[in-house]
């Protein structure tokens, strides 16, 4: 998470908590009560902090709060409270609130009225309109109601999704272009790839979930290129998790994008062979890390960039314990980049449909398989972080729930809870396919019994249902 977003997350959490406290306190106490005064003072302070004296837009969309267009990440301790607030808004038909900078001039009395009206509006016929009228009647002008609950995502979110989609598509074409140039033995510059890697770094820092969602894109025909970009994204996201700087994330992205460059020398018949490879073919296949190094050397890039980029091809099939291939004589340990790429490459490869195996592994199966080789093939610390990053049911997994519903994992709202994701419920589109329904959190509990509303029964690979999960994340953008 970028510094700015981390700050927003803290301030946002504080603001919602103050909001919640204020509306709860006015329910119980009289206007002149000291607790009310304090709760309003506290709310005004939190509002002032998060708005920075400017206009503040607070929006609820698809079960998530957005402050100034940025998705709010929650902390474990505030999750219950935020859940309550997520019920509070829809109960009143509210999409959100806009606080104008003039709130600074609002009196204590106005704030009390504001909070009371919000509470009261739940029992009214048309709460938003009723609230509008009441605010006017009480001359409260510093707050505005955002009424309709429509499907339009916040503008920033839309822009980011569009940018993410575009970057993804262009990255594929950049990788393709470079691969074609190197296969023709011509000089290939990496300006475009770098610019795209930089954009992806910014996006990964801003919205990791969105970028992880993109990695569920699968292109059966152009596997190598989508795979390369997916590996870059997964690697950058893991790099971000472990605290690599932006410059290193860019380099890691470049490594990912070009890690399979050596495959330009492997004949298509071998790459696409549906059966097991024979010894000769396998030997050729095993050469691609080395030919990849050779191809990276052909890139028009500085020595420093090449010295990083060469690690991608060379190390991505090299195991943590130095088994795997290519055979090493001089290399005596796998680099951090190599370890990251090994994990990202395996995960994306396992979860992709390939001709030589009957089906792709579902994301959770892939993780399980990888986990069985932790400490041998994969660095234990990095794999732990990777699993924590993608979650036990990674984004893109199809879940069958005990309610009979089918859901697509789209996000984990909390960084510290990776077993109960947010899922997009899938509905029959009437044409034999699926369409996205509402987004629910598997952390939601029954108010009376306290038990979870939905539990996972089974996990499936999205391609079994003919789904490209990324389409669901990006549908608003395109």
């Amino acid at each position, binding site marked *: 998470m970028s510094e700015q977003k981390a700050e927003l997350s803290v301030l946002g959490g504080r603001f919602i908590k103050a909001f919640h406290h204020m509306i709860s306190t006015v329910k119980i106490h009289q206007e002149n009560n000291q607790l009310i005064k304090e709760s309003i003072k506290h709310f005004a302070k939190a509002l002032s902090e998060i708005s920075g004296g400017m206009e503040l837009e607070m929006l609820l969309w698809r079960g998530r709060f957005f402050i100034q267009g940025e998705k709010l990440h929650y902390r474990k301790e505030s999750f219950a409270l935020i859940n309550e607030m997520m019920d509070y808004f829809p109960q009143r038909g509210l999409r959100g609130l806009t606080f104008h900078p003039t709130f600074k001039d609002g009196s204590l009395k106005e704030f009390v009225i504001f909070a009371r009206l919000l509470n009261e509006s739940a029992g009214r016929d048309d709460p938003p309109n009723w609230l509008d009228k009441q605010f006017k009647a009480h001359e409260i002008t510093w707050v505005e109601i955002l009424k309709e609950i429509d499907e339009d995502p916040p503008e920033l979110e839309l822009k980011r999704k569009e940018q993410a989609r575009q970057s993804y598509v262009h990255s594929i074409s950049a990788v393709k272009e470079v691969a074609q140039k190197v296969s023709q033995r011509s000089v290939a510059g990496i300006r475009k790839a770098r610019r795209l890697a930089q954009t992806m770094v910014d996006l990964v820092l801003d919205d990791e979930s969105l970028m992880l969602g993109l990695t569920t894109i699968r292109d059966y025909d152009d596997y190598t290129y989508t795979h390369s970009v997916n590996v870059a994204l997964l690697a950058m996201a893991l790099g971000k998790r472990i605290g690599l700087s932006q410059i290193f994330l860019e380099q890691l992205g470049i490594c990912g994008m070009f890690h399979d460059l050596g495959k330009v020398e492997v004949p298509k018949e071998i790459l696409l062979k549906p059966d097991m490879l024979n010894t000769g073919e396998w030997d050729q296949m095993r050469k691609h890390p080395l*030919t990849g190094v050779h191809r990276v050397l052909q890139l028009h890039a500085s020595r420093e960039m090449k010295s990083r980029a060469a690690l991608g091809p060379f190390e991505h099939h090299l195991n943590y314990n130095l088994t795997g291939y290519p055979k090493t004589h001089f290399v005596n340990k796998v680099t951090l980049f190599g370890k990251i790429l090994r994990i990202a490459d395996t995960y994306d490869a396992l979860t992709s449909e390939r001709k030589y195996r009957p089906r792709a592994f579902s994301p959770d199966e892939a993780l399980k398989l990888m986990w069985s080789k932790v400490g041998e093939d994969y660095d234990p610390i990095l794999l732990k972080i990777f699993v924590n990053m993608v979650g036990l049911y990674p984004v893109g997994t199809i879940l069958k729930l005990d309610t009979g519903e089918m859901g697509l994992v789209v996000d984990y709202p909390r960084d510290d809870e990776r077993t109960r994701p947010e899922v997009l419920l899938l509905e029959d589109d009437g044409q034999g396919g699926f369409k996205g329904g509402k987004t629910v959190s598997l952390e939601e509990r029954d108010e009376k019994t306290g038990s979870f509303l939905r539990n996972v029964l089974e996990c499936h690979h999205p391609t079994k249902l003919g789904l490209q999960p990324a389409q669901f994340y990006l549908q608003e953008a395109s």
Partner: protein
Amino acid sequence: MASVEEKQSESTKSGPSEEEWQAAEKVLTSLQLARKNYSLYPENHVNCERALEQFCLQLDKYLRIHGNLRFDLAKDKLLFQGEVILSEPAEEGNLPFTLFRDGIQWLELQKGIDSKEVEQFLRLLNKYRILSDEPEGDLVTALWEARFPHIQYYVADMFWGAEPEFEPTPSPTAGEEDAASLEEEKDSKSECFPAIEPAALKMTPEEEAELREMVRREEKRDPVYEYLDVLLDSLMELREKENFVPILEALEEVFHDSLARKHFETTLKILKSVHYIRKTCASESTWALPLIDNFFLTASSAKSLRPLQTAWMDMDTEEIEHTKQILVLLQPEAIQTLGGILLETSSLRLQKMLMEVILVLAHRDLKPLEAMLGRPEEELVQKLVYVLGRLDGDRSTQILGRMVRHPSARVRHEALKPLLTRGLTDIKGLFHLIEDESDAIRRLVLRHLGQDRNKVTENLLLEYLEQGKLKRSDDEHIIACFRTLGRCGSPRSIPFLRKTLLGRGWLPSLQKFSYRQGAAFALQSMGTKEAQEVLEEASKSLFSGARGIARKIIEDQKKQRKG
């Protein structure tokens, strides 16, 4: 990257005041001047420094009075608050085009900017004035990396214009099932739950610390070490010529860089490893041998070793030792460069090390050393001859023999010393040196000739003295030659010595005394009974010249015997 696109609209307010406009113009003019100077001169040139100072001054003045300074961009113009402030053709090198070309839509210089930030910005503007074909980066990439705190910009994604078609193809078997069939499908679902025990995913404090260390190391490390290992392993495993060459070239690059940066361990590792790889190629991949040899040849070239010339200045003992280990792994062709360095260094330690290296390399092939002996620098040639003198073999003896005719006395002397110790010396060939202009050489030759009784030497000296072939006529030289004859001669020389000491007629008039004295000393040196009899005879001679010399010697002999 400043991604707040909305900011763009802020720049179009009611229009600038005349004062503000003029101030912005001044900033721009000074920026243009600074760019020009940066493109013409090195950064530390006084013109660049002045231009930078002027730009900073104008910018600071603007920012203090008017706040942040924003320019919007078109391919051929810069706009300030919506009006064109600079117009230049859309050509490489021009400011608007340089910025616009890479997708920058607006650029803002903000309050708080300091001269370091400005200087770095100018450097980048200059570096990316013109983009090569297939470039590695551009101005936006550089700005992204630099993360200037007070220079904000907005970039339109320049690649978006021509969006490629992208419609991912699902697998041929995808979507064959619906939700109902998933009920029965056992193959496509994974066992739940959870696949990994969540508790196993908790990071321990030790792991947290290890991770922090891992990241710290990664960000601090020089990637060249791993890169080098990758290149070497690739070379070991890739046994196709077309793949081999570029990897060797990349290794060459690392080699040069490591030398320049005084990373001698890396340099040494490269050379040792490539030697090792050469050995492994010897049986199966013989085609690789000339390629590897060529690698060593390039590594040994003057261009390649040039960085050493500056690196010498402050090397410590350990570095000198490392350097020695590196240099001895090079090809003998390196001698030419090392010779140059040898000449330039005043450190005796380094000179010694270099000469040891040259010795090792010349052992492998003498030709490069031999070629260097024709150099005009006397000091260098002398040192190289010293090295040559430590090389055994006929070829080195031959070259040394040639070098004793070198115009420089120091060189001749250096060449003579080893020759005289080799035992196989062609005395006739060196005899001319008894008349060398250098005292030291003459002394050395005569000392050598007088080392033992030798018929050849005796004949040469007899002939030289008897036939009056001396080109040197100083007394000291004549006496030294007689003394040498006394040490190397036999009774065969006594008649000549007797004649010289006692005879009157044949001697050159000016050197009569020194001839007689020399003959007397020679007889004394011979120490034989026969020689002594001649001396006794001379002491009783009527001829006073001979008598005086002989008596003096006999008296000295007596004193010596008593003492």
